[in-house]
């Protein structure tokens, strides 16, 4: 309804653009306003329709507000409804005029016909005008108590609308409590569903500020509420069922019997024709069984058939949404789906976004037994008329080859691609052959023979050309023509537009030079000269670097350019496992379709039910803990994105305010109690350095019966490890490091009973660890599961340790993963960490 739309649309004759018409309607409405003449309602209907249709196409008809309201004094329900629609649209921009409507809406709220009451109440609450909220409270209160379920249904939503206009009015009128009462007592399931929607939204918007709010939220997830809803689930509409199921997925049952009860109760929901119900049910099943590995796997087996049915029976859109979820599951547990690979074959008439998903699934499920068939099928697609899909298919073949199954046969297929002589096929195949050779250098003979026959003139795409040039350089001793092909390429330096190709060309000529100097010398000179004159900075710099390197010492240059190569064992995965887990936690949401966690595409206030869930049950990685430890250092509390917010920056197209909102948490030790910080030295020395203070502290520990590991043998002790008590690391850096570094140690520790007892909130452990110069960057969880991310720095130098620590208090176990800049220091750090942890809960 924005005015700018008009200019765009004025070209269409059916859609008038302008003021003339509106003025016309206004005049006519005025004439009819007081009319009781027979047929007046019909004329009004026509005029109202005209107004609504103008409104729809984006013409501003707010100027007839007064006339519309005047005409709405009618018993004609069709007119009333059109008027409500109009008022709802324009009241916000015309708050003064909106006041005019209050009267008749309030009157209608008391109408004898429940439908009129409901409609009027809905319109009243949809006005979105702040200074009118006082008029809402009365009708809403009455509406919630109305004896007609339709009115109560509308009133429940009305409460939420009021909350958005004025939260305080809503809370002061005690509406949330009334909703809660209805939620648990109303006989009509749609009223219950609306109460649930409204309460979830209100309580998640209220934030975690007050304890009362968090208690209320926990009540929603309490056994009694969950069971009450579950037992009635069949009475709910399919849409409301989704709502209930979404809530149930956050419920934490107390034992496995309860889990099985819930699953048995919901079993038949998997046969629902509505994909949304099925996916919501699956989410419940997956979440409930996360800790029961074998049952979890059975769930995968159980949900396979319903998912496949939804994919093939639904509309193309629905089938895409379901397929995205199937894709996620296949990627998580490919082996479970490996016998279903034929379901992932592409159909010629499917849209390419579906084909892409299927190709990835085919790649994932390939194993020893099905690789041959899958690759055969993929090769069919390589000749597809849909070129992007043909390319994807070839890449898929390559990926399967890199997964190591039946490489033999696949290499042959790839080489056949090269012989197909289609530009894009050749291009993709070249890139793949290159990657393949990096992983399986033993295939070089076969590949080189074929690659050698490809004329570089036929390869235009930069990536493919670069791959070809790389192979020419790398295998120049085996490819007879290599120096001459390279020479030709150097001669055409000026015509080569891609800097990537020119960079590769420089390197390849260098490599070739060391292998076949007499044949390459001229082209090397030419290449270096061209490179030095190149306008591209990187190309120029590389040329200059080579030139100087050659001047300095030829044998050093050779070692730099042609070192002995190691085969690449694993190519880097593009998505970190943290991100994948996060997406899995957000099952049945857009995160799965976009293949990104929600924080990458959604603003914080719009994260929906997941935000809510995270605050309650799951790990909320929040520095709120740090807040309590270091009040001076205010970090935006309660944001779960802290850890991951900057990963994959290129993907974060959505302006993401979180990362910028954080300041690095620089811990100020002055606010930490002094005794503990001093103690840290003692603890560190205790397990490492056998010097004087150490032995004394040891004695104390023993006296206290701390159950420390037996005294370390004094002989082969590592050098003392001192940690920097004022270590600083900003979350972004942490996250980057966490992704880059390999896990250097992964261990399970037991926690002593005192520690378990002390760990009621994550904060308690944070304070404790900080006393040992181990700082927390993120933490979360609820008994019995807690998750922490810690970091520490060596006192000298900036070598950093990163720790992921998952504590389960019911089993009194802690799982530790340590990543370190300096891997050799992992062991000493681990013992420091362990000893610090073991002191937790000690007086």
């Amino acid at each position, binding site marked *: 309804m924005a005015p700018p739309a008009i200019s765009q649309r004025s070209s269409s004759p059916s859609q008038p653009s302008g003021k003339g018409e509106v003025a016309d309607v206004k005049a006519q409405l005025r004439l009819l306003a007081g009319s009781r003449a027979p047929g007046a309602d019909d004329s009004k209907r026509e005029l109202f329709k005209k107004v609504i249709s103008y409104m729809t196409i984006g013409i501003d008809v707010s100027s007839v507000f007064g006339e519309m309201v005047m005409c709405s004094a009618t018993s004609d329900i069709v007119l009333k409804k059109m008027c409500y629609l109009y008022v709802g649209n324009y009241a916000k921009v015309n708050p003064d005029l909106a006041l005019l409507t209050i009267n008749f809406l309030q009157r209608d709220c008391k109408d004898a016909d429940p439908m009129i009451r409901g409609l009027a109440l809905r319109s009243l609450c949809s006005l979105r005008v702040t200074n009118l909220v006082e008029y809402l409270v009365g009708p809403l209160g009455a509406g919630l108590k109305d004896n007609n379920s339709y009115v109560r249904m509308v009133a429940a939503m009305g409460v939420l609308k009021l909350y958005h206009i004025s939260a305080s009015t809503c809370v002061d009128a005690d509406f949330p409590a009334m909703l809660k009462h209805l939620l648990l007592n109303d006989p009509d399931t749609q009223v219950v569903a609306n109460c649930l929607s409204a309460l979830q939204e209100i309580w998640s918007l209220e934030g975690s500020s007050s304890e009362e709010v968090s208690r209320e939220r926990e009540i929603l997830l309490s056994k009694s509420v969950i069971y009450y809803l579950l037992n009635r689930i069949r009475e709910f509409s399919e849409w409301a069922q989704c709502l209930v199921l979404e809530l149930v997925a956050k419920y934490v049952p107390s034992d496995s019997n309860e889990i099985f009860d819930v699953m048995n109760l919901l079993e038949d929901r998997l046969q629902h024709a509505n994909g949304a119900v099925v996916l919501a049910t699956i989410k419940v099943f997956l979440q409930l069984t996360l800790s029961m590995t074998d049952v979890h796997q059975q769930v995968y087996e159980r949900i396979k058939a319903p998912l496949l049915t939804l994919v093939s029976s639904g509309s193309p859109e*629905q089938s895409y949404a379901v397929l995205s979820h199937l894709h996620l599951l296949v990627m998580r547990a490919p082996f479970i789906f490996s016998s279903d690979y034929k379901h992932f074959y592409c159909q010629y008439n499917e849209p390419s976004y579906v084909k892409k998903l299927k190709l990835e699934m085919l790649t994932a499920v390939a194993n020893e037994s099905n690789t041959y068939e899958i690759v055969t099928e993929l090769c069919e697609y390589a000749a597809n008329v849909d070129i992007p899909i043909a390319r994807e298919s070839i890449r898929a073949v390559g990926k399967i080859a890199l997964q190591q199954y039946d490489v033999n046969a696949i290499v042959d297929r790839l080489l056949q691609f090269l012989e197909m002589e289609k530009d894009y096929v050749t291009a993709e195949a070249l890139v793949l052959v290159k990657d393949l050779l990096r992983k399986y250098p033993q295939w070089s003979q076969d590949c080189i023979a074929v690659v050698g026959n490809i004329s570089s003139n036929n390869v235009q795409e930069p990536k493919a050309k670069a791959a070809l040039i790389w192979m020419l350089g790398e295998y120049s001793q085996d490819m007879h023509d290599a120096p001459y092909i390279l020479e030709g390429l150097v001669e055409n330096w000026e015509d080569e537009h891609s800097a990537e190709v020119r960079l590769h060309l420089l390197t390849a000529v260098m490599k070739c030079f060391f292998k076949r100097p007499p044949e390459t010398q001229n082209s090397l000179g030419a290449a270096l000269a061209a490179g030095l004159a190149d306008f591209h900075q990187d190309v120029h710099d590389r040329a200059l670097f080579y030139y100087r390197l050659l001047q300095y010492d030829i044998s050093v240059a050779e070692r730099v350019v042609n070192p002995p190569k190691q085969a690449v064992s694993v190519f880097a995965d593009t998505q970190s496992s943290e991100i994948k887990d996060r997406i899995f936690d957000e099952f049945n949401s857009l995160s799965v379709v976009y293949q990104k966690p929600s924080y990458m595409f959604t603003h914080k206030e719009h994260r929906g039910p997941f935000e809510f869930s995270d605050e309650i049950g799951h790990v909320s990685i929040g520095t709120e803990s740090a807040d309590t430890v270091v009040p001076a250092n205010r970090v935006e509390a309660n944001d779960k994105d802290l850890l991951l917010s900057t990963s994959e920056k290129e993907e974060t197209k959505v302006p993401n305010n979180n990362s910028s909102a954080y300041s690095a948490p620089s811990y100020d030790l002055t606010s930490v109690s002094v005794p503990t910080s001093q103690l840290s030295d003692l603890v560190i020395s205790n397990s490492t350095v056998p010097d004087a203070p150490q032995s004394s502290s040891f004695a104390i520990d023993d006296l206290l019966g701390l159950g420390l590991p037996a005294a370390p043998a004094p002989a082969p002790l590592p050098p003392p490890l001192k940690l920097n008590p004022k270590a600083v690391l900003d979350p972004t850096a942490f996250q980057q490091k966490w992704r880059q570094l390999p896990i250097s140690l992964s261990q399970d520790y037991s926690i002593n009973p005192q520690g378990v007892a002390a760990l009621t909130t994550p904060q308690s452990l944070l304070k404790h660890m900080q006393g040992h110069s181990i700082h927390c960057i993120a933490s979360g969880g609820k008994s019995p599961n807690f998750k922490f991310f810690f970091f520490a720095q060596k006192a000298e130098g900036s070598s950093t340790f990163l720790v992921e620590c998952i504590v389960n208090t019911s089993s009194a176990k802690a799982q530790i993963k340590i990543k370190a800049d300096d891997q050799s220091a992992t062991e000493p750090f681990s013992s420091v960490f362990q000893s610090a942890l073991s002191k937790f809960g000690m007086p």
Partner: protein
Amino acid sequence: MISQFFVLSQRGDNIVFRDYRGEVAKGSAEIFFRKVKFWKEDGEGEAPPVFNVDGVNYFHVKEAGLFFVATTRVNVSPSLVLELLRRIARVIKDYLGVLSEESLRKNFVLVYELLDQVIDFGFVQTTSTEVLKSYVFNEPIAVAADHLQPLGPAAIFMAKRMPVTTITKSVVANERGGRKREEIFVDIIENLSVTFSSSGYILTSEIDGTIQLKSYLTGNPDIRLALNEEVSIGRDGGSTYDYGSSLGSGPVILDDCNFHESVRLNNFDVDRTLTLGSTDGEFPIMNYRITQEFKPPFRINALVEESGRLKAEVTIKVHAEFPSSIIADKIMVQLPVPPYTTKVSFELEPGTVGNTTDFKEANKRIEWGLKKIVGGSEHTLHAKLTFAQELRGNITKEAGPVSMTFTIPMYNASRLQVKYLHITKKSKSYNPYRWVRYVTQSNSYVARL
């Protein structure tokens, strides 16, 4: 939770626009339309049903040439919103009789009435045609159906499925004379996906079936529907591709199936009957999937051979494997040819009628249309291709595969049957019209070269 709902015409005009939460700026319809129209992220691919622009998620389904769109900023369940959009389209169709730009423009006030009840503040309230009846006061204004795209019970679900006959009756409109005709339609629609290898073997085959109901019965009588008793559900052993059973007899084995909300399955395990309560409007009562071996209705043989330096010859043979009492309609056979093909000359068998042949220059494809194919018959097309350049490599890698679309009324590949359709009688004279119809269609019917 959705923020806005709107329907756009093919040209991008707003036909209906409803803002439920005021969280997304008003220009969203234009942003959406531009994005869909110029979707180029992946070459010429079409826009996926869900995408995100500046923090706003856009969902859309295409129906009758219209875009049904929802927007939200919240990370909702995509499957829920897409299903909802389909349902809204279907409910609108139930009320208007036909779904088209014209019918929506004429009845937009009625559509607003519906939308007002279907969604409140972004939350779905109901999509039941039956329940909505009591909230709709506008009479639908009928539009002539004949100059519209045919829209049948199936077409409402899937553009690619063609209807048997078109039902364009509104659930609320009265017939001439103010009386409603009591009738009920049950359609068994099966979509076939078959891939033949170059040597004619079946590589994959699947039947995706739907039992679709469209009811114009007043007073919501209970309906009982019985399937053939030899239907069994679930295949043993994880792999669903073990072709074992012989053709033409034995049980109908469904790999899996699902049911509409209103279906009661109390006796399903015993006698394969489905019971339904509230039944207004059009909806699928059961979807099923079969990978059990079945006899494909058509065999396709295609041969492409080089016949000279710049020439090739194509022969496509289609053999109808169903009884001669059955006639397939609207058959189209397509074959992509090498991109450097410049000319194609066709040759049909002498005496053939109702065939069309065409070389689509733009997308380098030959198209062979047949109005009808009678069961048991065989049809052949010869085509001579002329190329602008010499063939590189193998021609079978440059052309194909052959794909075929068809509709076969009163035929079903799975042998799943509705044995009877029982309607609870309100009175002795109550005897509504009942129609049980079968149709088999191609979903993806492909023969490789």
